């Protein structure tokens, strides 16, 4: 199984640990990722929020580049995934737009991409039994709050799961042996791209989410998006919380369960340290 790989700006530097763990886990599971040479920023929220042309041009350019590598594209960042999928959906359904966009990006995208999040790849392309066979270190005793955020589940054309009660991540965590909590903040917004721009948003939004996870006695929060990770991880110091909660990429948890080396997953890059908790649970 081979995918074109679009890491996106966040995974490039800021959240390189997500990049590392994604590559490691997928390699372990037999999925080959081929990074798209010369990929661009997808424009993130900034583009569609402020410029109608860039909204579709940037994702389209990347899609055009990607399909030259492979029609199947793996996108781990929820924000990038959202942009690429939304644009792709528009292009697939609007020939005139496709023509226009192709002209402006001086490329020829045909609307033939299949864009997937690694979570989908793991759950839909691989057999459950094969996956469970490979688990060497089940996440027993670990209580995980699965957090999906906005962009993985909205809108329908870009979503990877149900908008109100997604369960993909929960299913994976359960498969790995972890207990997942039922909570009301799975799909609440954490502040998205406002990390730097408007800290006030993050403190308020992420704070509520963290609080509910703490209330539900979660050991950690599993995420599948670098933005969510940063928002939940970065400012815990400045929030009014009973305790700090480690935020872990699902790929990191999966990596641990698959027996990958702790250090190779670069978990220590997180601001809120997770090692102590993981040691306690016997996962390191």
């Amino acid at each position, binding site marked *: 199984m081979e995918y074109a790989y679009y890491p996106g700006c966040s995974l490039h530097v800021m959240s390189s640990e997500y990049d590392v763990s994604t590559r490691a886990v997928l390699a372990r599971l037999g999925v080959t990722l081929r990074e798209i040479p010369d990929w661009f920023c997808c424009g993130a929220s900034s583009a569609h929020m402020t410029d109608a042309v860039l909204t579709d041009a940037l994702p389209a350019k990347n899609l055009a580049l990607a399909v030259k590598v492979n029609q199947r594209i793996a996108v781990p960042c929820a924000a990038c995934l959202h942009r690429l999928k939304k644009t792709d959906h528009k292009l697939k359904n609007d020939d005139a737009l496709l023509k226009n966009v192709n002209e402006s990006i001086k490329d020829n995208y045909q609307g033939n991409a299949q864009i997937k999040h690694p979570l989908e790849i793991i759950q839909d392309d691989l057999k459950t039994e094969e996956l469970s066979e490979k688990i060497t270190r089940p996440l027993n005793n670990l209580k995980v709050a699965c957090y999906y955020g906005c962009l993985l589940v909205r809108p329908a054309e870009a979503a990877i799961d*149900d*908008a*109100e*009660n997604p369960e993909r991540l929960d299913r994976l965590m359960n498969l790995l042996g972890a207990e997942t909590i*039922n*909570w*009301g*903040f799975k799909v609440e917004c954490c502040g998205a791209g406002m990390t730097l721009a408007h800290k006030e948003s993050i403190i308020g939004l992420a704070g509520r989410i963290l609080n*509910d996870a703490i*209330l539900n006695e979660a050991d950690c929060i599993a995420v599948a998006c670098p933005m969510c990770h940063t928002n939940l991880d970065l400012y815990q110091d400045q929030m009014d919380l009973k305790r700090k909660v480690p935020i872990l990429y699902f790929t990191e948890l999966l990596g641990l369960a698959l027996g990958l080396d702790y250090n190779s997953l670069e978990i220590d890059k997180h601001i809120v340290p997770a090692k102590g908790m993981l040691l306690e649970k016997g996962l390191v």
Partner: protein
Amino acid sequence: MPRTGVFVCHCGSNIAGKVDVETVAAKALNFDRVVFSTTYKYMCSQPGQEVIKKAVRDNNLDRIVVAACTPNLHGKTFQRCIKTVGLSPYLSEMASIREHCSWVHTDPDEATGKAIELVRLATAKVRKNVALLPLNIPVTRRALVIGGGIAGIQSALDIAAAGFEAVIVEKEPSVGGRMAQLDKTFPTLDCSACILAPRMVEVATNEKVIIHSYSKIEKITGSVGSFEVQIKKKARYVDLGKCTGCGTCTEKCPVKVDSEFNLRLSTRKAISTPFPQAVPNVPVIDPHHCRYLTLGKCGVCQKVCQAGAVNYEDKDEIIIEKVGAIIAATGYDLFDPKKYGEYGGGRYRDVITGLQFERLINASGPTGGEITRLSDGKTPKTIVFIQCVGSRDEQKGKPYCSKICCMYTAKQTILAKEHIPDVQCYVFYIDIRAGGKNYEEFVKRAQTDYGAVYIRGRVSKLYEQEGQIMVKGMDTLLGEEVEIPADLVVLATAIVPRREARTLAQKIGLSYDQHAFYNEAHPKMAPVENLTLGIYLAGACQAPKDIPDSVAMASAAAAKICGLFSRDFLSIDPIVASVAETCCVGCNTCVAICPFKAISMEIRKDRTGQERQVATVNTSLCQGCGTCLPNCRSRCISLNNWTTDQLYAEVMTI
């Protein structure tokens, strides 16, 4: 020798405001066989009709074309009009220059041009019209009532009161319908059972009313005046004649199943009656759960039944009833709120539907009338009601307003307060629709006398936190977000047609709207009739309705039927097919194709004594669809009023 008169209506300014009616009338005079034309302000009015009558007499007209509104509105009016001057009603045609022209086109010249063309079309057709003789159909003076809810019961009683027989077919083991599930009823707050039970008893004891409970319609054939109904009486396993309704069997039965009647709020036994006042008060065995019927062991109920009424060998039975008219009174279902993920999608036990709430507060309900939380059995102190769940929502539900939820929610806040004096009720609403006698007053009372807090805004999300349901909504009047920790949340779910409404409609040839509510023949002028002759509507199967409306409609439908039954013969339009036997080649094609099985083959002998088979149409079965015509290879079938000649004549004017 066709001599046609053309009558162009102004319809006030409805037509004349757009279409130059004088030009239309003038142009009409040039059309083939048109000898007279005129215009008038309101052709359908008395003086308008006089204009027509006079013209027919003075000009010796033998057919007329009225260019006015749609034939569906006044076709009959003008038919009747010319009948009074001795012309066959079938020698008239209408050109719809209002609905199909002046109202839908903007440019006056275009509209006038089109009106002329429409008149041309109609004059061409009318030329080929034939003076048909109406068919007289004998009327079987018994009515079938499908559905034994309050609407069905009321209409059966009214029909019986007029001295005719009514046959109720109810799919559940007991009649009563939704009303039997309710506690008290708005706007008077009288107890549902207290007003329903006497009716149920009455209908059970009335010798003119036959109840087939636990039965389904299999098939209906025939048409107005003489329908033949096949009813499947499901095996009840308890003899209706022998059972005394003592209830011992139910008591002793070891199997517990979720109760449908109590909406899964409690359990019932494998042998049970849905509720204590059931009519007939005879239990049924649920064959999917009865141990004897599934595993062959147990047999307790048979052993304990003193009357010897339990019979495990019981079989489904087909009954044939002959009736002259049918009332559909199948009521409604409730929208399943599972679609609303943001309201928990059915995951939160303390989020219930309005109807479940009715069962909760009902003294004979699963909790004996105590309002308790399903999660922990505690008495709620804060109850949030959310209106319009599934209503007025094209995205997840239905676009229409369910009409009664505003009212029953208000009722439920009152009842909640009566049951739990220190309860606080909140109601999230978008608009309050309380149009009815004493309805607005009732809602106001809920707010003033019972302290229900009404918040204008839709709830965005519910989630569980620390044993409570957090209700995240908007008070649009305040312009602020509100978050209410509730102990119990009640969703006023939309009223939707019965799940099987569509299948039933297709079986009996009822027309229905996009939601599967049954269509009235005309929204204002024929609200209780269906387009299919002989079928009437009552209650919530036509649209969301409360009890007073359902009962009013039921009585209206009954009155219509009594009117029909007051005659020995029903005179109907002879729009039926006929075969020109001389050219029929007996190929059988038409026999196979007729959806109403109206065509059969007969042997004819010609003068030389040679035998051959020819098709014949049974005019009381033929509905006049015309499907057989294009299929006849020798084109020897004709359909009255829609003859090939007539349609050709229209097409030829294009």
